């Protein structure tokens, strides 16, 4: 099972490091496992020198992707923390209704919201700016994030707040000094969701960012595939460059993931 899991990925790696641009460039070890026929970095250097339009190039797209992703993750966490806190610690009118409305996006096919979003952003003259993707990405992960944070705050006994309050701590102080450190695993999970949502998105970015100097990595990858239909070597190299950060983040956050996600899914 572990082999089946990594098998398609082995192909990507083998193609990326083999010379030639075809799917059958790698040789098969034991008749099944793809390995580079001869090890080469030629595809990596060729994608680095790739240029489109007036000097838009690979480093620029990496920078765009990084900028958009970091802003979306920070923004998403900034929206999620106070909302999750309020839903966990307070009772107020309209709480049920607003919590339910945050769940609506889960039940609605995401691709069709792109059209109204596009019309909205074009009225605001924000199409072809990073805002047009950062704002939807920030909101896109909320429906899960808010509930992960709410159950994280729920799991911290209220007595802690009350004790601190009697000791004279204000609400902001309790929040930053007591609650935030205790919910770090869940904040990690929430950040990871937001990270995946923006780093890997193609559909929304494709509509909003039409200027090639604004492209993100998935858009560049797609455009590359469109214009060089069978350049699988360079394509695989680009795919690896995109996948490596995701994989690193996953390995780093692996132990938090289980905690954060089950906090939201176990009844309690």
């Amino acid at each position, binding site marked *: 099972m572990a082999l089946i899991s990594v098998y398609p990925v082995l192909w990507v790696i083998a193609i990326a490091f083999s010379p030639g641009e075809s799917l059958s460039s790698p040789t098969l070890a034991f008749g099944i496992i793809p390995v580079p026929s001869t090890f080469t970095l030629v595809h990596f250097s060729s994608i680095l020198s790739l240029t489109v339009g007036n000097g838009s190039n690979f480093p620029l797209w990496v920078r765009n992707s990084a900028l958009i992703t970091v802003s979306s993750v920070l923004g998403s966490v900034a929206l999620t923390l106070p909302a999750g806190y309020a839903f966990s610690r307070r009772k107020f009118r309209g709480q049920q209704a607003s919590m339910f409305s945050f769940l609506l996006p889960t039940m609605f096919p995401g691709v069709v919201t792109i059209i109204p979003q596009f019309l909205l952003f074009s009225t605001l003259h924000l199409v072809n700016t990073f805002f047009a993707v950062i704002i939807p990405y920030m909101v896109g992960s909320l429906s899960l994030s808010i509930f992960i944070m709410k159950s994280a705050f729920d799991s911290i006994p209220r007595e802690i707040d009350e004790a601190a309050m009697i000791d004279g701590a204000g609400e902001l102080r309790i929040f930053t000094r007591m609650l935030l450190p205790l919910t770090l695993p869940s904040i990690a999970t929430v950040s990871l969701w937001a990270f995946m949502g923006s780093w890997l998105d193609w559909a929304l970015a494709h509509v909003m960012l039409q200027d090639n100097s604004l492209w993100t990595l998935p858009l560049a990858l797609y455009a590359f595939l469109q214009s060089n239909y069978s350049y699988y070597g360079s394509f695989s190299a680009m795919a690896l460059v995109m996948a490596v950060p*995701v994989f690193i983040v996953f390995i780093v956050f692996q132990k938090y993931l289980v905690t954060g*996600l089950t906090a939201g899914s176990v009844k309690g």
Partner: protein
Amino acid sequence: MSQRGKRRSVFGRIRGSPYLFILPALVGLVFMVLYPFAFNIFITFTNMNIYHVRPCADIFAQATTGNSCYTINTDLFKNFVFVLTDPAFVQIMENSVIWTFSNVIPTVGLGLVLAFVLNSKVRGKTIYRLFMIVPWAMPSFITLLVWKGMYNYQYGIINALLSEIHIPSINWLESSNCFNPFLAIVIANIWLGYPFMMIIFSGALQSIPQELYEAASIDGATGITQMRHVTIPLIRPTIIVALLLGSIWTFNNFNSAYLITGGGPGICTTIFITQAYNQAFSYFSFAIAGTYAVIAFIILFVPGIFWTRYTGLTRSAA
């Protein structure tokens, strides 16, 4: 409430209004989700498409040929009638249902079995676990394109492997019957989906207190009895959540259902979400796309409500 009020007066401390805390998130939700949602419902009653993009000054006017604005259909439910009486609708509906079940049941089953295996004392389970989250950690639109290559009739590795064991090559993606392409995308999506389930169930298994097993062994319960009376009851809530949430996500899974086959051949592998996408971005019939989306929402609303109720997600603590 009164107790809190008293505390505020005693200590003179300011408590921020809960509305202030949820306001930023709520504003985002209203503009990015609720407005598009409402807009989608609205356009299902219009003739909006690539030729009719802006609303007409007189939105209730009879649609006339030649203008570039859209109006509300005289027959309000025209688009719904069009979609529901489309001969393709029945097959798309069937496809969506089969797609959902044929993915969710194996991914949950496989995830559960692997979580059990990795929760027992197997050597090297950390490395296995790391390998098995690879499908989840890789960008899915890349791995799906790799699957597409592996399914290739002539050059694909899957047919090459089949011929090693003397099974004739299978025409996975361009077969005239719908079974092969459908099976192909289901296999690829199960591969993508089971790591998530495995992680969820591992977490649930690890959260069962060890004392319960010890107590059960003292009472003389062995393997299977322990499983039946301790493990299964305690992870049942997680299984139900995984089934419900998995169904909603699979039903809405665009990448897996689109990137390998593009919904084809014909409409063999077309489900609601790919149909909505094609209507919007291939045929630019935005009103029809919106109609498909609204129908999909109506279908998903039921499991969605069950999920919310069952997990008590919107219940406030204490």
